[in-house]
């Protein structure tokens, strides 16, 4: 980790060096050689470069506009041949897949929300990939933006925070005090009822992330770090994704070998039903909440 930090620091310093170099170079280039000092080939290349960049840019604009017009025209022409909006016997709506999902959905998965049954049971592997994409994006953003602060910087920042923090913003603080628990509760409700009602892991997780962001905005960095810091974020994300992967591995093993699964589907319509969908929803939700708060926090102050 320390090596990474050092290399990042070197990178930042290097870019600064490059910037200063550029400034000097720009000054140098203002001193133009006199006409008779340049050779013929130099004159020609300068002329070509100068003219080329301008011509290339205007050509690019023209080609881009023409391409956009062609593509949009083709798309609109295609849309005019599409089947009528909202028709029940459109090919997309009357296919065998849709019928199978709706008619066998509850029998197979135990979820009364067909979409939840579809994305977390029939296509759970796809959703694992989605969560991994989110995880990888969060990791990439951490690599690009995370900065370990020295103690002096931290001190300066805490002084700044003391100075600028709206300690007397009564409306914001009291509003957040009422709104944060309600929002968190609503997020958990959406999360735990993903297989019964609209919602699920992604939407519930986003609502929980919004609650965390609101708390952070109203009460500052220090009080957020008491219960949600970088390590907790990391551990929650890894446990959630790991549990998801393990449960999928178990489901694949059982399904491929035609073994009886120990996870029963329960009685459809009750909260503890539909097998793995509920724990998977919770996993996805916590992963999404941590990622959302991580994005906000990294873009705001380069740490979590």
């Amino acid at each position: 980790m320390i090596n990474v930090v050092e290399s990042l620091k070197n990178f930042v310093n290097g870019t600064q060096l490059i910037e200063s170099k550029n400034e000097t170079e720009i000054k140098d280039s203002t001193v133009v050689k006199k006409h008779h000092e340049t050779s013929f080939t130099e004159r020609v290349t300068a002329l070509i470069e100068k003219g080329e960049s301008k011509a290339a840019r205007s050509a690019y604009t023209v080609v881009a506009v023409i391409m956009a017009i062609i593509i949009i025209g083709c798309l609109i022409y295609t849309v005019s041949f599409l089947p009528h909006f909202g028709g029940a016997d459109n090919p997309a709506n009357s296919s065998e897949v849709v019928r199978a999902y709706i008619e066998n959905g509850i029998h197979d998965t135990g979820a009364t929300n067909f979409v939840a049954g579809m994305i977390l049971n029939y296509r759970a592997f796809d959703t694992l990939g989605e969560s991994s994409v989110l995880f990888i994006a969060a990791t990439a953003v951490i690599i690009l933006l995370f900065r370990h602060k020295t103690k002096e910087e931290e001190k300066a920042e805490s002084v700044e925070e003391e100075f600028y923090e709206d300690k007397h913003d009564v409306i914001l603080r009291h509003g957040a005090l009422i709104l944060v628990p309600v929002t968190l509760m609503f997020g958990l409700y959406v999360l735990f009822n993903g297989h019964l009602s609209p919602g699920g892991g992604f939407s519930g997780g986003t609502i929980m992330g919004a609650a965390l962001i609101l708390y952070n905005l109203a009460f500052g960095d220090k009080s957020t770090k008491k219960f949600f810091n970088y390590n907790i974020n990391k551990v929650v994300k890894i446990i959630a994704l790991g549990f998801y992967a393990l449960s999928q591995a178990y489901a694949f093993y059982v399904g491929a070998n035609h073994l009886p699964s120990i996870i029963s589907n329960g009685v459809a319509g009750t909260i503890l039903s539909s097998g793995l969908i509920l724990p998977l929803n919770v996993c996805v939700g916590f992963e999404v909440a941590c990622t959302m708060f991580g994005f906000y926090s990294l873009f705001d102050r380069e740490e979590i």
Partner: protein
Amino acid sequence: MLSGLISNFYETASIIVFGIGFVTLLLNRNIIKKIIGFNFMDTAIYLFLASKGYITGRIAPIVSERLGDANVVAYQAGTAVPNINNYVNPVPAGLVLTGIVVSVSFTAFFLALAVRLYRAYNTLDLHKIISIMNKEENEE
């Protein structure tokens, strides 16, 4: 052609939004505006998928007591099947969900890259960045 466009007005609107995003992506020099254009294109695709899955007069694909179609125990036992004429197409909902997650991920990634670019070159203008890069290459 015009009647087809009017009867498919959601799809037409989504293509127009897609076009706005595409042109923003191509013609703006500012990186942040390019990312906004990308997001426009995503949103247009979601609108298109959602409107393709809609069926007039039907409800979201969740078994509901409102339609008198909530004999969940029988459905689970396999002795009865839900009435397919009550629900819209559930497939586009899943596709849109996947799309939204991927779009959020790459938007965050692009924005982080834009932050790093701004730190390195002190500008978000793509042409200026490219000219600075060319100068650096020539120096080497």
